């Protein structure tokens, strides 16, 4: 074997082959990691329409039973909007299986539903990670409104994300 070839093999072993072995090790050790529960997708809301209509900001939701909550997740953080009113946007955080989020209604919705300025819908819910499709159980309330009664709701994920992959 020539000197050039021997050097090449040595360099190739240290700079390519060994790192590839390292990669295999990283992939193996990464399998034990856990990522936050997936809540990404569309969630069909179910709540008592009468109680929802009585809640400031809840009227539009009560009048549109097909409204879905659209969640776009990035790790523990997520943004949310309403399927029939994309201008109503909010954000939240996932803590284990508990979701906490606030949703600022769009101007049109706010006027229509009598939200008043500075008020937002607040959402606290628990995810059932074992349910298929995944479901949420929680309460909707309005911030800066101590007299408003929280409304219980349930939601079922309509479009689970398409991802999955090798183990």
């Amino acid at each position, binding site marked *: 074997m020539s000197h050039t070839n021997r050097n090449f093999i040595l*360099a190739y072993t240290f700079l390519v082959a060994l790192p590839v072995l390292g990669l295999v090790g990283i992939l193996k050790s990464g399998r034990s990691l856990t990522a936050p529960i997936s809540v990404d997708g569309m969630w069909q809301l179910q709540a008592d329409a009468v109680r929802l209509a009585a809640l400031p900001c809840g009227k539009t939701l009560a009048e549109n039973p097909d409204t879905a909550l659209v969640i776009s997740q990035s790790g523990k953080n997520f943004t949310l909007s309403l399927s029939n009113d994309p201008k109503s946007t909010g954000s939240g955080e996932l803590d284990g299986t508990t979701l906490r989020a606030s949703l600022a209604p769009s101007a049109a919705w706010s006027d229509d539903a009598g939200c008043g300025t500075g008020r937002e819908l607040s959402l606290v819910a628990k995810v059932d990670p074992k349910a298929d499709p995944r479901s949420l159980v929680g309460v909707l309330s309005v911030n800066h409104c101590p007299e408003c009664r929280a409304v219980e709701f349930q939601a079922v994920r309509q479009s689970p994300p398409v991802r999955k992959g090798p*183990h």
Partner: protein
Amino acid sequence: MPDLFKLVLQLTVILAVCRVVGSLFRRIGQPRVVGEMFAGILLGPSLLGWLAPGASAYLFPATSLGFLNALSQIGVVVFMFLVGLGINPKELKKHGHAAVLTSHVSITAPFVLAAFLALYLYPRLSDDSVTFTSFALFMGSAMSVTAFPVLARILIERGLLQSRLGTVAIASAAVDDVTGWCILAYIVVLTRAAHSGRSIWMTIGGIVVFALIMIYGVRHLLARLESAYRKRGELSENLMASMLLLVLGSALCTEWLGLHLLFGAFMMGAIMPKEQKFVRYVLDRFETITVTLLLPLFFAFTGLRTNIGLVKGAEMWRYCGLIVLIATVGKLGGSTLASWLTGMRLREAAGLGTLMNTRGLMELVILDIGLDIKVISPALFSMMVVMALVTTFMATPLLGWFCPDRVLLEESHRIPSQEPAIRTLASPSADRISA
């Protein structure tokens, strides 16, 4: 039916903004494509949607984005064909060990570092619908890619295309791209197969059969195109249309097999005859409309999906900084080390590392696929877009710093006896080319 008025308005605004920003970037010594990528971000929620949400909602309503996406994807299909067309496997053979080691290290170093970073980012920026393996492999392939077309553009602008630096960079980038796309293909196949319920082995078997047909059947058919060109000095409209049909057919096949449209287009380009004049002729026919009209749509569409606002707070910006750092250390550092070991002077090797660190448009194409198959989250997508912009932006000034003209001149007059012993790794042909 698309709202034709809205679609034409979108095209007009996108083209105008891309041309203006591209020209501004040219003035500061950056390739136009970097400006156009930046223009896409400006048109998205990161700037226009943030400053003027009403105008943004009017110009790019959610319902209209499907048509814009379809047009932009056609542009990327043709672009990937052109990228494949520009890749010549013989270039790699010319440089022997130098290019093989440089290209392989420039893949493995960022790949392994990215997988290592994935250990930290997976619990923070992903969720349990993505497996760690998919996440880490995707991060690796996204960080190890090199923007072959941007790299070629920088080399042409610096007059370095025929230098040793230029030829090794082109050869290594070609290997990087082919390897990166193969790994990405693996991830896409596994992800899509898991979702569709189709057997993974059926998909892999289909892809192998498709590749064999392309290499041993279609390639010979394509050789006839080259002979027709040699006889007449041009290709008839019918032959050009046939070529386009083959590109689209190949793209459809890979999509149908559960891969992605872009792999078929890339493969068709890769197996095309590589005679220089023929390649130039085909590039000239397709390049103008693709680069001036269709790619800006892709930049705009990518910009519309990029929301820098999702990268909020010190913690998220720290993740973003880590991504840029790891991508740069892996790619620039790895390529520099390998090329230095194969005989280049440190400055020239650092120049090569800088060129290899250029990710540009290829990165955006890969990230778009990652977001489509949901292997990466929207916030991570935005961070990776920032990384693509930063690494591409830094290429021109860093190259000028590492390799000013006097260094390249010295390099071209350098005598082999001055080289250190470890340079026995360098291919003799590489030295002949630089002489």
